[in-house]
């Protein structure tokens, strides 16, 4: 459910930048979404179709670039992808990893006319 306020945020950011660039229409939005960000792109698309209506972003396509989670072991510095069963380092069994990617959730760019 939380995707509604999130989608409103996306629209607001996009409209601000489009206005600054004197754009007539927003055709595409490029969103980066990390595996650990707890966002559901289907719901964003659903709300988008409703709230973008009657704005210059109506009908724009949302593109989601998904970023997989990557952890780095702070013991042996091995980089690995965690699973829903195992989080410890597969190489040395170490705990205390740093999250390198997977938490991002940002609007990267928009395409305008």
């Amino acid at each position: 459910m939380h995707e509604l306020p999130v989608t409103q945020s996306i629209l607001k950011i996009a409209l601000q930048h489009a206005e600054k660039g004197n754009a007539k229409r927003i055709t595409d939005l490029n969103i980066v979404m990390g595996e650990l960000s707890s966002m559901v792109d289907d719901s964003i698309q659903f709300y988008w179709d409703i709230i973008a209506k009657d704005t210059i972003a109506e009908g724009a396509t949302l593109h989601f670039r998904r970023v997989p989670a990557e952890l780095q072991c702070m013991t042996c510095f091995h980089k690995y992808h965690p699973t829903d069963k195992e989080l410890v380092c597969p190489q040395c069994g170490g705990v205390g990893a740093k999250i390198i990617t997977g938490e991002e959730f940002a609007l990267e760019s928009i395409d305008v006319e």
Partner: protein
Amino acid sequence: MTQNIPIVENIMNANDRLAEENRARINAAGVFAINIMASPGAGKTSLIEQTLPRLKGKLRVATIDGDIATSIDSDRAAAAGAQAAVQINTGGDCHLDAVMLRGALEQLDLTQFDLLIVENVGNLVCPAGFKLGTHKSVLIASVPEGDDKPYKYPGMYRGVDALVINKVDLLPYINFRMDYFKQGVEVLNPGVTTFETSCRTGDGLDAWVDWLIQNAKRK
């Protein structure tokens, strides 16, 4: 002519900014505020109920309860001795956000309190992304939920400042591998302050209450 405008703006910024305003308001009143998150039934309200009598005469406490529709939880908090209990009905939203917290803060004279306890909506996915402006996020994990929760909900375990493992009275009856659970936690959130509690027997509650008092004294 199509043109690409680079932006790279964190989509959560609007909420984060409001959370900062909430934080400033809470700080100005000298209050220590926590945000309690957990799945439904983990024991959020029970922990609040057990905490309040133990703080009697030590800290003045206000609670804010987020619930999809009812006011049962804030009634329980008031009955347990909260000096003020505000209910936020989220109207279907699965988490609190900074706007909702701001609305609740406006109903309180914060200068009358030392500790503010926010009970978030029961949910292990969404609340993590929505900062409220509280000082510490607390996650309650209860033993019957299973030992694999850190692995399934890394985002939640990652962002919290304290972890309460509740319902430890049930450990003899449930196959809960504490080592496996803690190993997952340690990867995501090394060294996080952890309490093992039972709201049924009272085990571990003193350490939890001390932690609240120590933090509130610093404000």
